[in-house]
């Protein structure tokens, strides 16, 4: 039976946790001989206009994975934005506004129709939970759908429309015990519906820390931030805390940021914050190896690939203690520290900078944790088991 991943956009150059997960999972399942495909829309990516068909509709093959793209319909972006802005600011919305959110979300009637027509012969894995492709797709195959929701505790997940949708699916595929606990609190499904899968992490990359330092002229100790620089990743707090740290401690280290988006006020003279923007994948791996510590301040994660990659590269991490998932990774691996306020941040950075033995030991624990739980062969075997049992 064909395994189809349904996702709102797909492409080799699209960044983002769920986007990268579906791409790499589909590729690894194909390599292992499973008939995995991707069905998606013609929209370019998350930041593009969700009414615009950037790609041509039809079938193609991308890096060994069959991809089928479907055109999207026009949507009322303004109506959607009003509701979305309310949710982003933590305001409650009415059931009517919930309907606007799903009606005016990214949606392809042709894709939905195909799902309905192939429901008997295909296993559909929808990812992530909050987009129209998932919402309308699951409606076409309730009780048969597999959902990789990529949950974190946010306003969207508390909407009635999504809680109802979660309770409809056949299997919920989850990344961590913390995400599993959240899922259990949100929906009424039998125990066997919850599948603790994890996510695959590439561990076979090579690193060259000195090459990164030379290329970007980075000298001395530095805290690394890797990822999109936006509000949802809590980057403002990291920048604020680091400025305070430099004000108290002086120029003992720098904050180096890599990834898309614009950092809030970075590169001001003398504040020790350098935003290198988007860098090639090899430079990212080199940056992990060169860094004193990776700091991941995000409060909303369902897995956190960057933490895994940093550990795989042999670097310890500093996470936010108010994020259940990243904190749980630190505790379970015994491979990183976490902070919930400025004094804790300051002490953790002091500790990481001054104790190289501790740093190395924590990194080794983290590396072992990734190897034991999230190697690709482990994840592929779990998917094979999951589909073999169905």
């Amino acid at each position, binding site marked *: 039976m064909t395994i189809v991943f349904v996702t709102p956009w797909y492409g080799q150059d699209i960044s983002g946790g769920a986007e990268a997960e579906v791409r790499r999972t589909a590729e690894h399942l194909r390599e292992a001989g499973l008939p995995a495909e991707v069905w998606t829309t013609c929209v370019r990516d998350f930041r593009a206009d969700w009414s615009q068909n950037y790609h041509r509709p039809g079938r193609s093959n991308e890096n060994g994975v069959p991809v089928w793209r479907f055109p999207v319909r026009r949507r009322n972006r303004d109506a959607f934005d009003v509701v979305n802005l309310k949710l982003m600011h933590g305001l409650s919305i009415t059931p009517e506004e919930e309907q606007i959110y799903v009606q005016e979300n990214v949606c392809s009637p042709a894709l939905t129709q195909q799902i309905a027509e192939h429901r008997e012969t295909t296993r559909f894995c929808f990812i992530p939970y909050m987009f129209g492709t998932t919402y309308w797709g699951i409606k076409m195959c309730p009780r048969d759908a597999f959902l990789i929701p990529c949950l974190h505790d946010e306003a969207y997940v508390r909407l009635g429309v999504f809680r109802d949708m979660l309770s409809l699916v056949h299997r919920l595929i989850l990344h961590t015990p913390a995400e599993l606990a959240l899922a259990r609190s949100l929906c009424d499904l039998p125990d066997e519906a919850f599948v603790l899968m994890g996510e695959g992490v590439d561990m076979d990359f090579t690193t060259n820390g000195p090459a990164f330092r030379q290329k970007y002229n980075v000298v001395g100790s530095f805290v690394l931030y890797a990822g999109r620089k936006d509000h949802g990743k809590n980057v403002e707090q990291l920048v604020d805390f680091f400025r305070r740290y430099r004000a108290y401690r002086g120029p003992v280290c720098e904050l180096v940021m890599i990834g898309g988006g614009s950092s*809030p*006020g970075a590169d001001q003279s003398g504040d020790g914050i350098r935003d290198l923007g988007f860098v090639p994948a090899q430079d990212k791996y080199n940056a992990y190896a060169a860094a004193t510590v990776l700091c991941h301040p995000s409060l909303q994660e369902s897995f956190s690939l960057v933490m895994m990659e940093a550990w795989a590269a042999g670097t310890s991490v500093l996470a936010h203690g108010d994020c259940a998932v990243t904190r749980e990774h630190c505790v379970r691996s015994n491979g990183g*520290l976490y902070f919930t306020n400025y*004094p804790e941040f300051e*002490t*953790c950075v002091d500790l990481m900078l001054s*104790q190289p033995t*501790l740093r190395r030991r924590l990194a080794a624990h983290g590396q072992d944790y990734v190897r034991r739980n999230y190697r690709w062969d482990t994840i592929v075997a779990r998917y094979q088991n999951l589909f073999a049992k169905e």
Partner: protein
Amino acid sequence: METNIVDLIQYDETQPDIEDIMRQIRQHLAQKHGARISVPIESSESRLFESEVYGELFEANQVFDKTFVTSHLTTVRIPFLGSLWQRLRSQFHSLTIFYVNRAADAQMKFNAHVVRILNGIIQGLDRDKTPERIEALAHRVENLERRLQALEVPPGALPSESPKGS
């Protein structure tokens, strides 16, 4: 000279335990800043208040210093002048945040005092074992009332004022 907390943290170099390290960090920070003290925990031995009170107090201990705000700028879609307008907005936000956070800092210090006092009151009352004392006092009052009743003679049982046989 002030001791650096890092110098006080002890761990096994061959097998460091991050939960233990984090516990030590919090403990030393509490001693240094006096902000976080151990929250009274509801126990079966001394349950003076409803469990919600302990829950609320725990929450207060978690959020009393979360008063700082950070910038949240929405994207501007104006062609040509958009980036200039965004820079101006960014500067204005930064200036506002600077003053808001100064006020937040003062509020945080006040919150810390209030939370410490509340923790102290609850801990003090719990240590006092007030419920047991109230129960003992009630028991004692009950005993005294019983003894008093035994000493008091009902009016009908009083001896007649008129001499017997008159």
